[in-house]
């Protein structure tokens, strides 16, 4: 059960070296003995806890992906099974935290807000991209398989490399720009209610990268901007306050070879987005904008 790296060989060589060079003092030996006992007790407690949990009716079984390229003995990817006592309202993130705090402190995953706002805990749960803190255990079939998001490099256990996703997000210049300022120096840049309503859903992205991970096209073409970045471009391109010039610039970015035209309307991104952003709809609308922008018959 425990996935601590086996430390046996290292310890024995160390103690062998110690005996050669110096005879340990009585105090050292006593402390060593104490540490050993404490570790034993801890291991026993963990084992008991695991046994109790496994026997209990109301426990859930988690199968969690484990992998650490930097530690020998964990370089071969594998799945660890954890039995976690179920409590009402428990999310996948809660269960993972329980497993980490109770059984194996080396179990690694990102999380922060625990309320679907920070976007750090998107993972692959039972075969689809989910935000762990927003996914109820009661809605899943057991055993629950938890894996890192597909189509990104795995750093360790459930942690993936996000750099590429962030690069794509930055490529669309995800910040407000305009050269159409209101007359008065201190005047506000007002947005009409209708326009705000139009971009409302697109502003909700939490940069979790679930959509990017679910996309067939992004998987095969690393340069494809991906749903989240295109949605970000939509958020600004559709914002009337940016003005015509900036909109042209934005359309040029999304029209490039690896932009909106890569999308094959498979709807997988829309399906997995934890913030229910209609990504495909936004991508399709940008495609039409791009066409209208380039084709002029009148």
């Amino acid at each position, binding site marked *: 059960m425990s996935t601590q790296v086996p430390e046996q060989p290292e310890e024995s060589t160390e103690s062998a070296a110690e005996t050669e060079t110096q005879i340990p003092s009585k105090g050292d030996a006593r402390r060593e003995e104490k540490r050993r006992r404490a570790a034993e007790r801890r291991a026993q407690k963990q084992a008991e806890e695991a046994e109790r949990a496994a026997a209990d009716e109301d426990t859930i079984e988690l199968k969690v992906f484990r992998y650490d390229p930097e530690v020998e003995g964990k*370089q071969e990817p594998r799945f660890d099974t954890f039995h976690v006592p179920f409590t009402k309202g428990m999310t996948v993130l809660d269960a993972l935290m329980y497993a980490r705090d109770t059984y194996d402190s080396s179990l690694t995953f990102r999380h922060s807000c625990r309320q679907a706002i920070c976007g750090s805990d998107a993972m692959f749960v039972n075969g689809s991209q989910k935000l762990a803190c927003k996914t109820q255990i009661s809605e899943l079939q057991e055993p629950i398989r938890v*894996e890192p998001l597909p189509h990104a490099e795995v750093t360790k256990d459930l942690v993936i490399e996000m750099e590429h996703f962030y690069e794509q997000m930055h490529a669309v210049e995800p910040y407000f720009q305009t050269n159409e300022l209101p007359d008065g120096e201190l005047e506000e840049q007002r947005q009409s209610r209708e326009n705000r309503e139009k971009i409302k859903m697109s502003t909700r992205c939490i940069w979790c990268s679930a959509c990017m991970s679910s996309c067939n096209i992004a998987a095969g073409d690393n340069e494809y901007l991906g749903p989240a970045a295109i949605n970000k471009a939509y958020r600004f391109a559709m914002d009337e306050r940016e003005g015509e010039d900036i909109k042209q610039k934005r359309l040029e970015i999304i029209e490039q070879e690896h932009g909106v035209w890569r999308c094959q309307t498979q709807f997988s991104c829309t399906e997995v987005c934890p913030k229910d952003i209609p990504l495909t709809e936004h991508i399709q609308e940008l*495609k039409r904008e791009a066409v209208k922008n380039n084709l002029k018959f009148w």
Partner: protein
Amino acid sequence: MSQSYNRGLIEDFSRWREFSAGMWAWIFHKFTGWVLVGYLFTHIAVLSTAIPAAGQEAAVLQAGDDVYTQTIVTLEELLLVRILEVGLLAVAVFHILNGTRLLLVDLGIGLESQDKSFYASLILTGAITVASVPTFIAGAF
């Protein structure tokens, strides 16, 4: 050209096991599109090599002894060809129905029911295919 990550040792982990409706629609549309192209060229090749019929005398044509008629009759006698024809109809019907669905998607119409329209295409394709079986198989045995 495009390139993608190779995750090395863990490349095969966390691959999709669950395809959603839109993904199936995409795979099927590609597949049926290319089957139709394949059929189109086979069709042209087979029939154009049977064209010498055009030079035949009227009597031969009347008797149905010309190459063109012979080719068609021989093909239609094969049970395999009859079955393939049913398959071709299924492929074409699905491609047309899902193609219409894709055109609507491109226009941004009914995006919320994209999965339902895919299932509807499948069911309709199935129904039309089944209904066509008597016509295609008639007299094959």
